């Protein structure tokens, strides 16, 4: 496997163009100093990406909004400790991912608690309508979406980062703090599972 010649077809998820390193180098100290317009600029640049990452993990828009706010609060607080050598986006996405995962875990324990209570007390609990279902248009999409959500978390996360957020494998490795080879193997594994799910449908 040779060194990559990246052919990026960029239909960028985040419509705002990438911030240059020079601008970031100036912006970050301003934010640390507490200048509101600098903070506003930084937030505006990255809030969509952060929000969409959170959304792809937790699935709920309201929760994703809360996570976005928490992420920027946390990021502003630990901005002094941000090291230059790492991509700022990757650093921010790591915070987002950690926050999202914590939320998801809390929600899961809450769900389990609710289920236990309902089974003990036989109380009917209103089920929240899963918002994802309404967007599916055909059977193939249903199969792939189902397969994606059934994937092990580490395979699903790399798939979403690669296909939805269009991060490069080195960026993904940076965000998740894993080696690039691991990213490749997880992507291959996920792709194979999705592909065979589709194949089963075709009855090949």
């Amino acid at each position, binding site marked *: *496997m*040779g*060194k*990559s*010649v*990246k*052919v*990026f077809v960029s239909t960028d*998820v985040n419509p705002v163009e990438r911030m240059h390193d020079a601008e970031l180098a100036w912006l970050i100290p301003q934010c640390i100093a*507490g200048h*509101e317009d600098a*903070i*506003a600029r930084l*937030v505006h640049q990255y*809030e*969509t990406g*952060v*929000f*969409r990452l959170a*959304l*792809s993990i937790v699935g709920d*828009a309201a929760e*994703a*909004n809360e996570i*976005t*706010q928490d992420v*920027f*609060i946390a990021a*502003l*607080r630990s901005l002094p400790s941000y090291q230059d050598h790492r991509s700022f986006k990757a650093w921010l996405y790591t915070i987002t991912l950690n926050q999202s995962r914590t939320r998801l875990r809390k929600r899961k324990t809450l769900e389990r608690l609710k289920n236990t209570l309902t089974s003990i007390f036989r109380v009917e609990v209103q089920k929240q309508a899963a918002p*994802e279902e309404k*967007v*599916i248009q055909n059977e*193939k*999409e249903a199969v*792939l*979406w189902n397969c*994606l959500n059934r994937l092990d978390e580490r395979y699903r996360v790399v798939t*979403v980062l*690669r*296909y*939805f957020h269009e991060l*490069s*494998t080195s960026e993904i490795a940076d965000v998740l703090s894993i080696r690039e080879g691991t990213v*490749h193997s997880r*992507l*291959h594994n996920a*792709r*194979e599972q*999705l*592909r065979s799910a*589709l*194949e089963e449908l075709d009855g090949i």
Partner: protein
Amino acid sequence: MEISHARARRWIQFDADYSLSAQDKEFLEAHLKSCTDCGQYAASIKEMESIIVPLMRRQWNLSPAPLSIESLQVGKTNTLTGGYLLATRTAIVGLICMVFLFSVWQLTFSHTPGLSTAAVPPIPTPSIQFTLTGSSQKNCTERSYIVQQRDTLDSIARQFASSKAEIMEANKLETESLHPGTTIWIPSCTFTPTGTVNASTTTYTPSIHPTTSTPGG
């Protein structure tokens, strides 16, 4: 360059990661031209991608609710006071723990009464005395043995249920060193008592005057 099907599939995967070099990509294309199976594999991956990516976008291409910068700043100070609150709480909890541990330590040390410090006369172990009246018979057999290379007096004694002292006495040995090839006599003796054995025990009633001190309150 010809490539195997396994390699082609691996390269198809790397290509999907945008991690295939231009040269390897050429080899892959050449292979795919002639191999229908691998071509099918590549096509099925592309199909999967073409379905999943628009689907993800439809699900998640929402925009976030507008964030007020003030809320972020306010959040900052809140966490600051929250930090002080947490610190005081931790201090209080720590203090309670220390008090608790201290009282537990006090209790364990004053649990054993003053007996351990007072002078207690040691309780003598009751003894049983055997007195043998009569005699016993000693039966000895002797056998000859040729000393081997690695033999020692101890090992030979063990082998024939004898003792080193007996062997030395029987052979009038002055040292413990043996020469391989020499013949020695090994006595093994048994004792059978022919008399009677009397046993008597002496009992003691220990008198202890413990000086108890009430445990410190």
